[in-house]
């Protein structure tokens, strides 16, 4: 079933795209991440131009994070105040990321930047997750009781100005690191075509010490709003959002996510984290290999701009 994509300007196999959305949705539902870090490279691999892949995946991530956010919202597991402060940073970060995206694309260094970001971030985070979950699994095997985190409010960076209290997240923290994290995630997310959930969750847990009860829900809401902004910015500056592609990905993604979420209920948290860590690490390694191995053709060629476009 071939379907012509009006912005990417090429026909794709509809079932292939739906299937990819389904598979990535399954993974995203299972691990509670957006899955953009897998979906964007896959789309580029099947021949979708990188700019269109990145912009359209943003729409897909927004859709899947809305269904996640709604279910966490019903369980009261979202901290809207924290998201509000994060968004101050990510609004600027996303706008900056989209602008940097156009600039890097023009200079021919976009692929390199994306690959380097993937290698460093995915390998780093993947490694952390594997080590941390490996330790947790070893601990539970040895029968040692897990360390209980104190249930009182935690204070982070209160020496800095603009100290704020977030009752839902049970933290008291200066707004500066929060805005900084939002800025970084918005920037990287819009360049790499990822929601940044796999970056935001560790940042919230380890840097801000947000209560684990609201981490995933808060990260989903933050991802939702950031990705909605990314869609609008990409559409306004690069006209690179392909709604047909995005819709196919969304449909596959939201359905897959439901099955993924059901599967994850039957697995232990640390096993899930170990699996996700291995997946993330594998993708990072794949990008590293592409960077260091001699390419088949050292030359590449693209259209820079059209002379007359009717």
């Amino acid at each position, binding site marked *: 079933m*071939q379907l012509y994509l009006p912005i990417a300007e090429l026909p794709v196999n509809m079932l292939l795209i739906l299937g990819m959305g389904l598979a990535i949705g399954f993974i995203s539902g299972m691990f509670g991440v957006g899955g953009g870090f897998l979906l964007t490279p896959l789309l580029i691999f099947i021949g979708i131009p990188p700019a269109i892949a990145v912009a359209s995946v943003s729409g897909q991530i927004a859709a899947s994070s809305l269904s996640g956010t709604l279910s966490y919202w019903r369980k009261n597991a979202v901290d809207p105040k924290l998201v509000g402060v994060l968004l101050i940073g990510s609004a600027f970060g996303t706008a900056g990321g989209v602008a940097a995206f156009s600039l890097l694309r023009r200079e021919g260094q976009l692929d390199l930047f994306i690959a380097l970001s993937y290698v460093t971030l995915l390998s780093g985070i993947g490694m952390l997750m594997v080590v941390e979950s490996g330790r947790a699994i070893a601990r539970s095997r040895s029968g040692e009781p897990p360390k209980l985190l104190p249930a009182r409010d935690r204070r982070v960076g209160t020496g800095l100005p603009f100290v704020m209290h977030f009752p839902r997240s049970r933290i008291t923290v200066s707004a500066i690191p929060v805005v900084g994290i939002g800025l970084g995630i918005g920037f990287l997310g819009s360049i790499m075509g990822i929601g940044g959930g796999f970056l935001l969750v560790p940042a919230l847990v380890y840097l801000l010490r947000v209560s684990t009860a609201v981490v995933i829900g808060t990260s989903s809401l933050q991802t939702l709003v950031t990705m909605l902004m990314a869609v609008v910015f990409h*559409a306004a500056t690069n006209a690179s959002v392909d709604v047909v592609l995005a819709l196919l990905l969304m449909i596959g993604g939201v359905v897959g996510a439901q099955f993924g979420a059901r599967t994850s209920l039957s697995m232990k948290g640390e096993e899930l984290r170990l699996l996700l860590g291995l997946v993330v690490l594998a993708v990072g390694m794949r990008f590293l290999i592409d960077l260091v191995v001699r390419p088949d053709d050292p030359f590449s060629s693209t259209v820079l701009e059209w*002379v007359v476009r009717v």
Partner: protein
Amino acid sequence: MSRIVLVILVLLTVVPARAETMITSLSTHRLQITSNFVGSEIVLFGSIERDAQTISRPGGYDMAVVVRGPRALMVTRQKTRFFGIWVNTDSRQFVEMPAFYALLSNKAAADLADIELRARQQIGVDSLTAITPRLGPDPAATPAFRDALLRINRAKGLYRENPTGVTFLTPNLFRANIPIVPNTPVGSFDVDIFLMSGGVILARESTNFEVTKTGFEAFVANAARDHGVLYGLAAAMLALFTGWAASVVFRRD
């Protein structure tokens, strides 16, 4: 002065008119891309008209049909190893390159005419003119970039040659199937038809056709180009709706 030039021009065009002329026709001048587009083709028919004075051509006729898509500024980049990783370090821009090029003929490009004539009339992928405005630090390397550009576009199916693309139905009637590839650029395409014999052009005809998106595809593409912000907001609404619908459909509690 201009009148003299005009007279000379008229004379120049009239004198070879004693030789062959061509009548050609395309099956369509507007190819519309719909949602189920997977590539297509446009058929060119032509007949060679001779009159009593036309001398016989012992070598028979050759046909070359040159199809050129919309022009673009293209860039070719070269990766070299830099601290262990492969990085784009050098590039050349090529101005006004056709985004699609096809040569349809009844024999290989090299057998049609000599290289000068082919380069002048842009007959054959290898004789395409590729002008680069800046030669870069190493002008001697530019031909390698040009070759790479042609090679990559050939590999993508955007530059192609078909030495059996023109079929003679009778000695004076021919047909050529112009391929429209699935990843075709959108815009206006020029078609130049050369009637040749023994490496000389006897007659030349030009026509064109347009490849456009239609219906929903055209609506989406125009909206994305002309109303970026609104389009982005609509795409965001679509994402919200899909996510919300999924959470309603799959709600378990």
